[in-house]
C-alpha cells in the first residue's frame, strides 16, 4: 500500500480556507466597515448642516474678515479677506516654530552636554532643570510666562529702560537697523561669502584626502562668510542708522518690538522643549562607546577633532530621529498659543469659526497647515538622517 505523495498547494489552488482568501475577506470587511462609517458620518454631517442651515464650502475665504490681528509681519486690515488672515496666522505660527526650534536646539544641547560636566554644580543644575521643566504641562508654563510678562512688568508709561531697550507690559522694544539699499550689498556679501566658504571646504577636503594635512573646516569658513559680508556692507556705504525707540506720552514708539504674547509663547515652548532635547542629547552622547573616545585619544586627535570627527557623527545618528520628534512637538505645541491670545493659525481659525460657523472648513484648514509642516519637517529630517547614517556596503 502506498500513499500518494501530496503535492504542495500552488497559488492557483483556491480554497475558502486559504490564507489568501481570508486575507482578501478581512480586507473587504475593513474597507466596507470604514467606508460605511465614513459615509454615515458624512451623511449625518450633511443632514445636520442642512437642518441647521449651515452653509459649507470655502467661499467665505474671500469675504472680509472683519477683525483685527494684534501682530503680523505684513500689514493686516480688518477689511482684508479671511484667506489673508489665515496667511498671517500661518506666518505667526511659523515665526514662533522656526525661532523656537533654533533656540531650543542651542539651549537643549548646552543643557544636555552640561549633564556630562566635570563640575558637580553644573551637572546638578542641568538635571534639576530637566526634571522641573518636563514634568509641568507646557500649557501651564505658557500661562505662567504670560502672567509674569503682563502682571509683573511695569506699565507702558513707566517702561523699564536698559540702554535703548524698553521693557514693559506692552512687551519689549529695542533698536532696529533701518533698512537701506546699502544693506543689500551686505546681504549679497554674505551670500558670496557662503559660496566661497563652500568652495574652500571642498578644496580643504580634497587636500586632506590627498595629503592628510588638516585645515580648519569650521572657523576659516565662518571667517570667510563674515569677512565678505562686512566687505559688502562697507561697499554699500556702511549704513548704520538705527531706529531707536522713544518713550512717548502713552507708549514706547519706534524701533522693533516683541509683544508679551509672542515672548511668552516662545519662551514657554523653548524652555519646555529644551528639557526634552537635553535628554535626547544626553542619551545620544552616552550611547557612544567609551572605547571610541579612548581610541581617538590614542590616535593623537585633539579634543576638538575627537568631538568633531569621532564622537559627534556617531552620537548624531542616535540623536536625529528623536530630535525630529521634538521639533515636531514644538511646532504642534505652538498651537497652545491660542490660550494666551497670540494670533497663530489656530487662534485665527477659531475666531473665523466663531464668526462664520464653518467648523468643518476651519478645522480642516488647521489640520492641513500642521500636517504640511509636520510632513515637510520629517521629510527634511529623514533626508538629513539618511545623510548621516552609517555608510554600509
Amino acid at each position, binding site marked *: 500500500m502506498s500513499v500518494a505523495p501530496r503535492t504542495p498547494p500552488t497559488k492557483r489552488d483556491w480554497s475558502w480556507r486559504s490564507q489568501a482568501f481570508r*486575507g482578501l475577506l*478581512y*480586507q473587504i470587511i*475593513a*474597507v466596507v466597515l*470604514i467606508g460605511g462609517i465614513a459615509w454615515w*458620518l458624512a451623511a*449625518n*454631517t450633511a*443632514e*445636520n*448642516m442642512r*437642518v441647521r442651515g449651515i452653509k459649507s464650502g470655502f467661499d467665505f475665504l474671500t469675504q472680509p474678515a472683519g477683525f483685527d490681528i494684534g501682530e503680523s509681519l505684513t500689514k493686516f486690515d480688518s477689511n482684508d479677506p479671511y484667506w489673508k488672515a489665515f496667511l498671517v496666522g500661518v506666518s505667526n505660527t511659523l515665526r514662533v516654530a522656526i525661532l523656537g526650534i533654533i533656540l531650543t536646539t542651542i539651549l537643549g544641547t548646552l543643557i544636555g552636554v552640561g549633564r556630562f*560636566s*566635570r*563640575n*558637580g*554644580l*553644573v*551637572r546638578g*543644575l542641568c538635571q534639576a532643570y530637566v*526634571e*522641573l521643566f*518636563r*514634568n*509641568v*504641562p*507646557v*500649557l*501651564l508654563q505658557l*500661562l*505662567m510666562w504670560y*502672567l*509674569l510678562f503682563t*502682571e*509683573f512688568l511695569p506699565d507702558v508709561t513707566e517702561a523699564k529702560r536698559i540702554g535703548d531697550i524698553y521693557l514693559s507690559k506692552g512687551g519689549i522694544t529695542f533698536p532696529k537697523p533701518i533698512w537701506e539699499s546699502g544693506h543689500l550689498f551686505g546681504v549679497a556679501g554674505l551670500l558670496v561669502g557662503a559660496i566661497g566658504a563652500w568652495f574652500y571646504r571642498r578644496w580643504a577636503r580634497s587636500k586632506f584626502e590627498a595629503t592628510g594635512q588638516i585645515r580648519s573646516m569650521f572657523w576659516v569658513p565662518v571667517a570667510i562668510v563674515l569677512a565678505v559680508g562686512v566687505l559688502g556692507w562697507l561697499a554699500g556705504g556702511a549704513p548704520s542708522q538705527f531706529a531707536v525707540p522713544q518713550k512717548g506720552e502713552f507708549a514706547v514708539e519706534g524701533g522693533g518690538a516683541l509683544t508679551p504674547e509672542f515672548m511668552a509663547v516662545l519662551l514657554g515652548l523653548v524652555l519646555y522643549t529644551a528639557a526634552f532635547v537635553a535628554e535626547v542629547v544626553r542619551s545620544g552622547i552616552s550611547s557612544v562607546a567609551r572605547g571610541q573616545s579612548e581610541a581617538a585619544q590614542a590616535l593623537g586627535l585633539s579634543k576638538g577633532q575627537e568631538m568633531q570627527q569621532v564622537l559627534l557623527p556617531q552620537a548624531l545618528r542616535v540623536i536625529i530621529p528623536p530630535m525630529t520628534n521634538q521639533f515636531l512637538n514644538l511646532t*504642534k*505645541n505652538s*498651537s*497652545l498659543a*491660542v*490660550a494666551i491670545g497670540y494670533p497663530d493659525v*489656530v487662534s485665527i481659525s*477659531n475666531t473665523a*469659526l466663531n464668526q462664520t460657523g464653518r*467648523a*468643518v472648513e476651519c*478645522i480642516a484648514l*488647521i*489640520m492641513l497647515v*500642521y*500636517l504640511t509642516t*509636520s*510632513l515637510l519637517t520629517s521629510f527634511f529630517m529623514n533626508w538629513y538622517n539618511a545623510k548621516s547614517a552609517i555608510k554600509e556596503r
Partner: protein
Amino acid sequence: MAETTIFKFSPARPAPVNTEGLIPWVKSNLFANWQSALTTLVVGGLLLFYVPQFINWAILTATTVPNADACRAEGVGACWGVITEKYRLIIFGRYPFEEQWRPLVATLLMVALLVMSCTRVFWKKWLIAVWVVVLAAFFILMYGGLFGLSEVQTDRWGGLPLTIMLATLSIVFCFPIAICVALGRRSNLPAIRTFCTIYVELIRGVPLISVLFMASFMFPLFMPAGVTIDVLIRVLVGVTLFAAAYMAEVIRGGLQAMPKGQAEAAASLGLSYWQTQFKIILPQALAMVVPGIMNNFIGLFKDTSLVYIVSLYELTGSLGLALNSDADWRPYKLEGYLFIVAIYFAFCFAMSRYSLWIEKQVNKSKLR
C-alpha cells in the same frame, strides 16, 4: 673582587589618594581645575544670591491667612492665603460644595488603584476585576443618582478628579486600539496596513488641540439628529483616539525589535496568527517598551490640561475659574499657578521615577 649586594628596602609608596568623603568629592567635582573653580564660584554665587531671596519670599515672609488684606500688607512675600481660601475650588472645580467629599473619595480610590496597578504583588488576574469595581465606584460617586447620592451633571465636574479620570480612562481605552493599530501597521494585508498607517500619521501630524476642537465643534454634526453626546465623553473619545496613535507607534517599536525567529518558531508549533501575537510576540514586545508606555502616560497626564481650551475645568481650568472673576485674589494668581505646578510635578515626577524602576526590572532578565 667579589661583588656584594646589600639588601636595601625600597622606599614605601605614598598612600593612595583618598577618593572618598566630602573633601575629595568637592575637590574633584567643584575645583578640579581653574575653569571648574570659576564656574563653581559664578554659579554658586548666583545660587547664594537668588535662592535665599526665593526662600524668603516663599516661606519666611509668606502668609497663609485666607485674607486678601493680609496679603496686601507691606513686606509680605508669597500669599499662600489664596490657596487656603480657594483650594477646594481649585481642586474640585465647580462640584457642589457640600458634596465635595465624593470627588475626594473617588480620586483617592483612583489613585490607590493606580498605585496598586504599579506594584508587583498585585499583578494578578483579579486586578482586572478591581479595575472594573473601582471605575464603577468612581462614576457612581461622581455622578450620583444611586444609593441616595444626589445627581451631579458632568458639566460641574472639575479639577483634579477630572484630570486623573481623563488621563486614566484614555490610557486604558487607547491600549486595545493601539495594539490593533500597531499589529495592523505590520500586517501583510495592504488595505488594513494602509488604513492603520493613514490613521497614525494623520493623528500624529496634527496638534491635540485640533482634535479637541473637532470633538467639541464637529462631533455634534457627525451624529444623527436627536443624538447628543456629553461633551466630557466627546473629549474623552478625542483624547483616546489621539493617545492611541502615539501608543501604537510605541508598541510598533516593540514589535519591530522582536527577532523574526519568535514568530517563525510559533508558526512551526502550529499556532494561529492571534495565538502567535497574544502568547508569543506581544508579551515580549510590550515588556520591551514599558518605559515608552510610561512616557506616553506622563505626556497624556500633562496633555489633559489642554481640555481647558474647550471649556472643561480640569486643574488648570479650575484655577482660572477660581481666580479670574475674583478681583481680590486675582493679583495672587502666581501663587495659585505654583500650587498646581506642584500638583502636576508631584504626579509626573513620581511616574517618571516609577518608569526608571520598571525599566530596571525589565532589564533584569538581560543581566547574567
